[in-house]
């Protein structure tokens, strides 16, 4: 099943994980609605989507912790329900919000998890990987949020897994802790590991992931490298502006401006996807001047995955 999508070089890039037609519902809520995914060996694959999009349900099905209502899953060429022990030996898993015993030390927790696996690095080596060596004797209760998260990753790395699952690994962390975790995951990649992670942070997906699947309402709505996904917008830049009262500018007129590829309206703001800022901005400003209109807000940014999400759903990723 996992090799279908890859023609020719399936030996060089067999899939580390894949699923077909995944469905899962809780009562009347459909969490996952017919999801197909292929995760290639050695890549970092990100499931990006808003809270409640079905990311956690999907990753927990892949991890063998949840049974799907329908669909097939293959992990490292093996199947849940048949090869569970072999799979568990080769997977690294970090769950959202696992709390280790407060009164155990960092080293004791890692040593406990290490004992469950046949193979893996020493406890000291794992602590060094995640940068928790100075904290090895500290109780879990004394760790910061970032240190606790690195401990969770440490427990997922004790068997030097082939495939690492991370569910919202940096949610709630300060920027410095996030960067520390990113660089530690980068190290895992360089040792040849495959990562599947969920996130609702754009920058995380763009920084870490080779490929991103954007999920909304349990469906995959876009798939590709961050660069390709942004390129599908056909425009590298986004101009956002709001007017100081009065009727919005006509969409037709805006589309006529040089370099403008698309026009969207969100919550009273207008956003233009443009290929070249240096022609579009003067033209827009000249148009406003002619109409005697004043701006209350004006901003430009490089197109991001957020814009891809907006383009597909008409909503912001983080409407909280």
């Amino acid at each position: 099943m996992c090799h279908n999508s890859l023609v020719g070089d399936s030996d060089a890039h067999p899939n580390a994980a894949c699923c077909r037609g995944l469905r899962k519902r809780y009562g009347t809520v459909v969490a996952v609605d017919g999801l197909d995914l292929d995760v290639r060996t050695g890549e970092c694959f990100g499931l990006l989507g808003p809270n409640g999009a079905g990311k956690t349900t999907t990753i927990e099905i892949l991890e063998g912790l949840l049974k799907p209502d329908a669909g097939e899953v293959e992990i490292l060429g093996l199947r849940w329900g048949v090869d569970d022990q072999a799979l568990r030996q080769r997977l690294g898993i970090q769950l959202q919000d696992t709390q280790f015993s407060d009164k155990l030390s960092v080293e004791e927790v890692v040593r406990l998890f290490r004992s469950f696996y046949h193979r893996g690095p020493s406890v000291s080596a794992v602590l060094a990987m995640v940068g928790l060596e100075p904290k090895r004797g500290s109780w879990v209760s004394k760790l910061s949020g970032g240190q606790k998260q690195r401990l969770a990753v440490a427990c997922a790395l004790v068997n030097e897994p082939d495939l690492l699952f991370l569910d919202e690994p940096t949610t709630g962390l300060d920027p410095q802790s996030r960067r520390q975790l990113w660089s530690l995951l980068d190290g895992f990649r360089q040792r040849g590991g495959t990562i599947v992670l969920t996130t609702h942070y754009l920058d995380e997906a763009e920084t870490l992931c080779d490929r991103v699947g954007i999920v909304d309402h349990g469906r995959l709505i876009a798939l590709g490298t961050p660069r390709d996904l942004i390129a599908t917008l056909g425009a590298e830049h986004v101009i956002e502006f709001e007017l100081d009262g009065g009727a919005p500018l006509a969409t037709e007129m805006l589309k006529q401006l040089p370099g403008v590829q698309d026009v969207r309206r969100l919550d009273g703001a207008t956003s233009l996807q443009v290929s070249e800022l240096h022609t579009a901005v003067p033209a827009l400003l000249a148009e406003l001047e002619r109409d005697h209109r004043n701006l209350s807000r004006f901003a430009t940014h490089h197109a991001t995955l957020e814009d891809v999400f907006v383009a597909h759903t008409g909503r912001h990723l983080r409407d909280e």
Partner: protein
Amino acid sequence: MSLSLTPDGTCAMNSRRPTRHPLVELILARLREFVREPEAVFWVLIFPIVLAFALGVAFRTKSDEPVYAGVLAGQGSAEMLAALGTSRGIHARTVQPEQADRALRDGEVQVVILPGTPPTYRFDPTRPESRLARLAVDGALQRLAGRTDRFTAAEQPLQVVGARYIDWLIPGLLGMNIMGTGLWGIGFAIVWARTKNLLKRFAATPMSRSHYLLAHILARMVFLGVEVGALLIFSWLVFSVSSRGSLLLLAAVAVLGALAFGGIGLLVASRARTVEAVSGWMNAVMLPMWVLSGVFFSSANFPAVTQPLIHALPLTALNDAFRAVMLDGASVPAIAGELLTLSAWTVLSFSIALRVFRWK
């Protein structure tokens, strides 16, 4: 750190020190969590001793404890009080009419005498000490009125160690304590781990699930020696309570009891999602046994039809086995039934818990 480069240039990070067996690591983790929790240590070790001391003092054998009689104030009460004052073993005092019933209820007096010819005794026939006081007062008043004893019996006061209430109580406290620590100690730890997603995290590893459950029970065994030993040494030092039977057999009974209640603790915690829910279940399991299984008073007081049920309860089996060993010096064949009951509870509860356990 044991990072080193092997001759072929690959990074060898496998530990030189072999890792311990997961069951050992799980047990160590449980032990560490326990000893680092001061409250848990208090409830397991200190509380039973405090309880034994309090009960031992309250129920200490009082060899010449007098009976307390109240004389209702009114006509003839002064004469009655004076007359009773000459009798050995009776403490009499005047009670006002409006206080009489309350004094009886609260045990300040055990019988109230209404002076008259003949006098009236007001007492509570459901309380042994009240019936006793009535007999003592009646005897004294009859003698004062001229009745003579036909004979004076010789007395052999029983004061031997092993026949007192405290001797009977300590085995019951041991059993109750093993039940409590087994249920609370295991139940809370498991439900805590479940609410914190830790059980789910363990389920995501190749860890053997029965190892995890077994570790909870086996970790209890380490403290069992301490908690049983502390109570036994305390009651030996303070009340001279000792065991007539072998200490080895006593230890074996304790281990079997702890296994049974460990399994029951696992079973009670196997599905509960919140600490509140598991507390309710544990109380529901323990309360009937506190009452029925003969901790503070003999379970023989309950109707005969209920006896088979009462004897099937694990705490009854444990208490009976403890008492048989400590008080009667029983050997294995004499307590085979109890040992069998405890073994059955252990096997059943553990295997059902493993089957129905909720990991996520």
